[in-house]
């Protein structure tokens, strides 16, 4: 005797599901089950309906990270989609960069550099006018207006970059001081995504699935961040910080309602393991968008 599974659609999912609730989505043709925190799609990637959209004028995220999280080895992962134009120039991440008396840094994407290479760089300041270019301009596959998974981290003092799970060779540039053991999440942090003032910033485009680990992921683990060129469920990799930009249970728009494409982002829930001092707050109108990694 066949069992008929109740139906829903990706835009009309129950707002307060119980663990174990299951539906067939008539628009996506996915079988979805609620695990208590996320909807999981049977036979495919983790359910992903929204990303964050930045208009490239002044919108960005401010946030906090636990002060121990990036103190030694760490890994960050984010999905990005940025156009191949000047609006793609700016800091992907920044924290207190150049701030007087503070250790700061910024991971910068320069789509319009002299060579037109779409270069990624990491600059670190010691707050006293000294800079360490820990990652000198390295060409990466951003600025193509397609979704890309970017991983940056540090292992035993050496930085590493992966683009779509493939490691990119990096070199050290100017070294006014050695930042290899610097705490990248010091107590004076002012963490931002798509920082709005540095260089040609802010970047305009999309981000999704931002995660941080308090360790250096292995090449094998980085390969697990994507599946069929889409974001994977990160639960088994146990990130300390994991923001899903509209797809975590409890994510809201600025009016306190459920996320919908075009809504200004409100509360974002950290699905990572840390329970304090891991926040992201949109500034100046970052919106949910239905353009997600495919």
């Amino acid at each position, binding site marked *: 005797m066949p069992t008929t599974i109740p139906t829903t659609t990706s835009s009309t999912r129950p707002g307060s599901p119980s663990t174990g609730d299951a539906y067939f989505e008539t628009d996506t043709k996915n079988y979805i089950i609620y695990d208590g925190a996320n909807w999981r799609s049977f036979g495919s990637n983790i359910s992903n309906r929204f990303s964050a959209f930045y*208009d*490239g*004028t002044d919108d960005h995220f401010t946030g906090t990270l636990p002060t121990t999280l990036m103190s030694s080895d760490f890994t960050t992962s984010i999905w990005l989609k940025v156009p191949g134009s000047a609006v793609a120039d700016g800091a992907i991440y920044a924290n207190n960069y150049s701030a007087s008396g503070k250790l700061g840094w910024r991971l910068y994407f320069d789509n319009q550099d002299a060579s037109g290479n779409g270069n990624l760089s990491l*600059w670190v300041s010691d707050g006293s006018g000294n800079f360490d270019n820990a990652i000198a301009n390295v060409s990466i596959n951003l600025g193509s207006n397609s979704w890309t998974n970017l991983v940056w981290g540090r292992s035993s003092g050496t930085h590493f970059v992966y683009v779509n799970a493939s490691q990119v060779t990096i070199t050290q540039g100017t070294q006014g001081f050695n930042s290899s053991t610097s705490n990248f999440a010091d107590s004076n942090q002012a963490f931002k995504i798509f920082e709005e003032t540095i260089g*040609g910033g802010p970047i305009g485009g999309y981000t999704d699935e931002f995660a941080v680990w308090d360790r250096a992921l292995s090449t094998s683990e980085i390969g697990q961040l994507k599946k069929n060129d889409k974001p994977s469920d990160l639960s088994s990799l146990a990130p300390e910080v994991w923001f899903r930009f509209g797809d975590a249970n409890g994510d809201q728009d600025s009016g306190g309602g459920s996320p919908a494409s075009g809504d200004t982002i409100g509360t974002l829930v950290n699905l990572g393991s840390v329970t304090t001092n891991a926040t992201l707050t949109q*500034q*100046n*109108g970052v919106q949910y968008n239905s353009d997600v990694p495919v």
Partner: protein
Amino acid sequence: MRTYCIINSDEVSSVDFDQVQETSADTLRYSVDGTKTFVKYEGDQPSFLSGKTEYTHAEILEVLATDEWTNPDPI
């Protein structure tokens, strides 16, 4: 659809942040010399911006890409 208006920095005190997308005076982006900033909104132009030139998204991006608004030094 969002619309953008450039204002002088000394006009920030007149901005009703409930009617624009910007969060507060502390999150505004200023021109390189600090004399100008801008706000964005959806729908009708708020009354406190009456008389200000309105820009589309594409138009304001062109303005912001000039040296008046963007410091080309990435360091």
